[in-house]
């Protein structure tokens, strides 16, 4: 399958401080990649840089998404091109109905792609369909965007938005943070139902437990602004077992994704 996302030597700063220091990543359509790493390694920064958030300045490197230079696009253009960021902290917008918001978003994206706008009947049909796929009720529809939502509801709402917007590339930024095990399962099931051969996903997480439910094709370890190890799902288990500390004394470098984790001591 062709490469959907190719990140080459990405450097980025936040408030003048370099956070990403030469990150390389290739993601093919249909793949799920997990990015793990200690706090402060730059995991959330990667998602924000890809989504185009202000304040995250790319100083070097290149990001090619479906043949386009992603870094040249405005945040809303990236969204319309199919980049979706599931927020670690979904934002409340008081007084704005969740359904209205989502329809505005979907229609903005459809307009960008030269497709017809969906009227409210057509939109509601789509919404019902997605709710069914995700096995979630419609109680979120009638409330204001994330307003007064519990932590679990907020994350479910993110997955629901993802289902409706059908992105090509979904970046899940610590979607498991603050969730109890039941909420975690619900969210993970939702994500699994949205797996498709046309969709790539980057799952950013601090803990391995999410990967018990969302089984990734590859696991990358991000430390100090770079991917320092890459492997299969078993790499996550190893991290869980040994913690991130072994990275520091080990200084691993495993770049062959297909093979097992190799630790090379100098």
């Amino acid at each position, binding site marked *: 399958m062709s490469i959907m996302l190719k990140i080459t030597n990405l450097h980025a700063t936040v408030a003048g401080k370099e956070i990403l220091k030469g990150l390389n990543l290739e993601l093919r359509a249909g793949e799920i990649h997990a990015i793990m790493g200690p706090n402060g390694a730059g995991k959330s920064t990667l998602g924000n840089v890809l*989504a*185009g*958030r*202000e*304040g995250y300045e790319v100083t070097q490197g290149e990001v090619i998404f479906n043949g386009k230079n992603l870094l040249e696009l*405005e*945040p*809303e253009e990236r*969204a*319309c091109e199919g980049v*979706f*960021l599931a*927020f670690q902290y*979904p*934002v*409340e*917008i*008081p*007084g*704005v109905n969740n359904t209205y*918001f*989502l329809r*505005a*978003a*979907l229609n*903005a*994206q459809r307009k*960008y792609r030269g497709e017809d706008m969906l009227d409210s009947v057509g939109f509601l049909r789509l919404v019902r369909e997605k709710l069914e796929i995700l096995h979630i009720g419609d109680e979120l529809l009638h409330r*204001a*965007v994330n307003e007064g939502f519990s932590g679990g509801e907020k994350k479910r709402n993110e997955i629901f*938005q993802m289902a409706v*917007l059908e992105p090509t590339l979904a970046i899940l930024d610590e979607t498991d943070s603050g969730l109890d095990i039941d909420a975690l399962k619900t969210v993970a099931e939702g994500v699994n139902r949205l797996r498709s051969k046309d969709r790539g996903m980057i799952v950013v997480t601090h803990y391995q437990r999410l990967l018990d439910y969302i089984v990734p094709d590859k696991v990358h370890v991000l430390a100090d602004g770079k991917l320092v190890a890459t492997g299969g799902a078993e790499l996550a288990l190893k991290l869980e077992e040994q913690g991130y500390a072994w990275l520091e004394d080990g200084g691993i470098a495993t770049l062959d994704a297909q093979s097992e984790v190799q630790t090379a001591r100098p």
Partner: protein
Amino acid sequence: MSGETSTIDKMVEQKYRHGFVTDIDSDTIPPGLSTDVIKAISLRKNEPEWLLEWRLNAFKHWLEMEQPDWAHLKIDPIDFQAISYFSEPRSDKDRPKSLDEVDPKLLETYDKLGVPLHERARLAGVAVDAVFDSVSVGTTFKAELKKAGVIFCSFSEAVQDHPELVQKYLGTVVPQRDNFFAALNCAVFTDGSFVFIPKGVRCPMELSTYFRINAAETGQFERTLIVAEEGSHVSYLEGCTAPMRDENQLHAAVVELVALEDANIKYSTVQNWYPGDENGLGGIYNFVTKRGDCRGARSRISWTQVETGSAITWKYPSCILRGDDSVGEFYSVALTNNYQQADTGTKMIHIGRNTRSKIISKGISAGHGQNAYRGLVRITPRAQNARNYTQCDSMLIGKQCGAHTFPYIEVRNPTAKVEHEATTSRIGEDQLFYCLQRGISEEDAVSMIVDGFCKQVFKELPMEFAVEAKALLEVSLEGAVG
């Protein structure tokens, strides 16, 4: 983050869309204020002797009063002798009997403003009493209203046709000496609206008036009086825009509402007067006294306002809850952009037993705008079981604007229950980015967030008005983006 700020700055620098001047010769009394000028106004309007006396009495009081300075406003000195106190379109000499006789240029002005004067008014079932400068030029739906026994006419007409009603209620809610600008209005008011809903009548349609200031250097002093007799209902809509001007124009209106037993008055305002340019030059001074008197038991007065215009707004639509079980409500959205200033709020005076009041205030500040909420809740000793709920939210857009809240609460009865909630938030980089990340443009995102913020107030407005109000906020905030 500096990039975002500048984008927002661009967005809020929307040009005032209603800035144009209609070329109609005005018959204007030369600038200046004196008893002679007041006599001249009264004479031109063919007023009865008692009204002239009333005006002159107010003028006497005004001369002894001083312009208040307690508001959170910076006001350049006003030269009251430089203002012309009367102006009317020349075609007034043969006063139009119907819309067909109205100066086409005038109608064109309304067209530009989107005032639904004829077809749209008819379709919407709205009666429009349009005030152009100081004289009413057209009134529709009179016949239908007449059938219901409702009187809806210009204030001048009311003085001629229903002097006993005017005399009975004029100045009974806002006394002549109430404040500096009210006293001035009493002395020199030129026109406005008069509404009378007889006992037990539910007004068959929304009553709507559009005001517009036109002639240069002419202060406009409107006078509105609405009387709802026992058990009657009325919903009144007031909306206005003004053409582009460089000089500051003084506007000091007085609105009095009287609700007798079981009567219900809903008064909605969308105010979009010229706010001045992006450097704070020009714009309307809007110093208004609006007060409703819930005189009868179980009466109810509800104020809803959407204030986006004027260089300076100084306005506190209030309710005197005199009747037992009466209810007062105030719903407000005030937006200040560029160098606009607003000091607005309400007063709820609880006198009767079991009286209830509710205040929902939404202030939005952008650019260098300064927005103050000032509200008084007074529970008098007699007001057993009085209740008040106040919610006062401010939103800041950009970094140079300000929001201020001045709540005054006076409780002199131990059974009272008074609640006050206040929040201030900045339209977040977070909220904006969240919308952008879903594919929504920056411009749409800002108006969506602002609409959401104002929702509690918009839902109190009549349908067409709510649409207009929403559009107005968008016009005031949307900008060069896209």
